[in-house]
């Protein structure tokens, strides 16, 4: 049974990665058609760097991702702290609202935001309301739950007396946060921020409904592209992005490993009755 599971898992992973392989291979293909191999070349990578269209789009995506994930991290961390101090009833309501963007189909989120912006546009007499601002707002909105759901468990794992101890020793609540609490929840903050960044970078559906012609992100443009034949430069871009994200994941992985080791050590010392040592 165990071998079946292992073999099956390997097959599934291959299945998951087939497209990556196909696209990576295609990025080195001298021909345009993915299905027809015309020889190995770095040409597409070269063309990519000389390209004046794709890279600015990538930059747009990165800008939105960075700003929205930072904003979501700050707002979301504050929210997580506030939620902890809420009455159980308030907390339940808040968590229900937090879960809405996550359980709602993306298309509904996108459509609802589009209608909101259209409505606001009418009210404020703005034409062509969709643009950078609407895109940013949308991204922050769907990033927030990820940050909150990432930070809250860390807050829960933290010794609840740490804040009291800091205040007991002379810190105001604000000082207590920056000197003590933030260190404890930092892994949650970072993983929340990274998750938000990644979700933002790749977002298509929601962005598709709230973007404006003045500021387009890469995924949206790729969708518009794919109504015409696809440029091979995109495969090169994809492969590069793949490498970058792989790197980021490895980083996150190492961070988690360090965090887990520290937790395990701490729990081991707290959890049991001690032998009369020193």
């Amino acid at each position, binding site marked *: 049974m*165990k071998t*079946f*599971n*292992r073999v099956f*898992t390997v097959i*599934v*992973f291959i299945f*998951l990665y*087939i*497209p*990556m392989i196909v*696209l990576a291979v*295609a990025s080195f293909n001298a021909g345009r*058609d*993915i*299905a*027809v191999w015309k020889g190995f070349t770095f040409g597409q990578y070269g063309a990519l760097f000389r390209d004046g269209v794709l890279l600015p789009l990538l930059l747009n995506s990165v800008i939105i991702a960075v700003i929205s994930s930072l904003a979501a991290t700050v*707002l979301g961390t*504050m*929210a*997580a*702290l506030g939620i*902890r*101090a*809420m009455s159980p009833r308030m907390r339940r309501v*808040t*968590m229900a*609202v*937090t879960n*809405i963007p996550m*359980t*709602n*189909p993306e*298309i*509904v989120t996108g*459509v609802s935001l589009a*209608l*909101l912006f*259209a409505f606001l546009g009418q009210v404020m007499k703005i034409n062509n309301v969709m643009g950078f601002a609407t895109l940013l*707002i*949308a991204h922050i*909105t769907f990033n927030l739950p990820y940050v909150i759901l990432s930070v809250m468990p860390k807050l829960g794992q933290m010794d609840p007396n740490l804040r009291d101890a800091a205040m007991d020793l002379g810190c105001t*609540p604000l000082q207590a946060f920056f000197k003590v609490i933030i260190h404890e929840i930092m892994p949650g903050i970072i*993983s929340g921020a990274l*998750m938000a960044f990644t979700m933002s970078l*790749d977002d298509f559906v929601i962005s598709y409904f709230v973007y404006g012609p003045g500021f387009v992100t*890469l*995924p949206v443009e*790729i*969708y518009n592209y794919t109504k015409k034949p696809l440029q091979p430069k*995109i495969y090169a871009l*994809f492969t590069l*992005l*793949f490498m970058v*994200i792989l790197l980021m*994941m*490895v980083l996150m992985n190492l961070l*988690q*490993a360090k965090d*887990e080791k520290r937790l395990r050590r701490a729990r081991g010392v707290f959890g049991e009755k001690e032998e009369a040592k020193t």
Partner: protein
Amino acid sequence: MKSRSLATPYLIWMLIFTVVPLGIVVWFAFTDSVTGAFTLGNLARMGTYLPIFVKSLWLAVISSVICLAVGYPVAYYIAGTSPSRQRFFYMLVMLPMCMSFLLRTLAWVSLLEDTGIINNFIRSLGLQPLPLIRNDGAVVLGMVYNYLPYMIMPLYTVLIKMDDKLIEAAEDLGCTPTQVFARVTLPLSVPGIISGLTMVFVPAVSTFYISQKMGSSGTTLIGDVIESQFKAAYNPNLGAALSLVLMAMVLLCVAVMNRFSDGEEVATI
């Protein structure tokens, strides 16, 4: 300064950008696109879309079930390996989710097309090309492919949190490995199953891209219709009505499934 008030900016944000928009959707759904008056007409037209709703539901259910069947053994295996390997596998599962879902789907198109990689290979063997795309099966494949990680992760989370001692207790009381799985592991993993099914079902039932690229004209899904109402036909009222029904459908399914779990929030992140 009360700690509670730290969450206030967030609450205001969510109110304006999550709750209010949904209210606007409801408002549009009940409003006539031309006159702006209150109308049930948009909802009445839902009847004509019934086959599409059914098809979306059906394909989403099939995809969810396949994801469960495929994902469970994988999650089980990963949960049984050493912690460092677990992190590695977890990363491998998450990685595709972070990559452009459009491009990955397009890669499948180029694999499955009549002039695609697989069929080129088949033709080179002298055989007839297979109709691997432009049908329901391809759409299901696309859904399973894209949403499989969303099934694996909650399952994995639940499985690693399971207390080994429970398994030992079952063995101690005389259960064979199969019985241990059926009577202890499987029932205790139900919250993860529900979570995974939800996380696959919701995007599957509402997708429009996968059906556009890998389906035929017979596989127009509800997501396609909504998209076209907003981008092509520009009838936001009808689109809103469709969205409303879609949301209701999703909420209903999620509520039904939650009856089977004890209400625990499985942190899947």
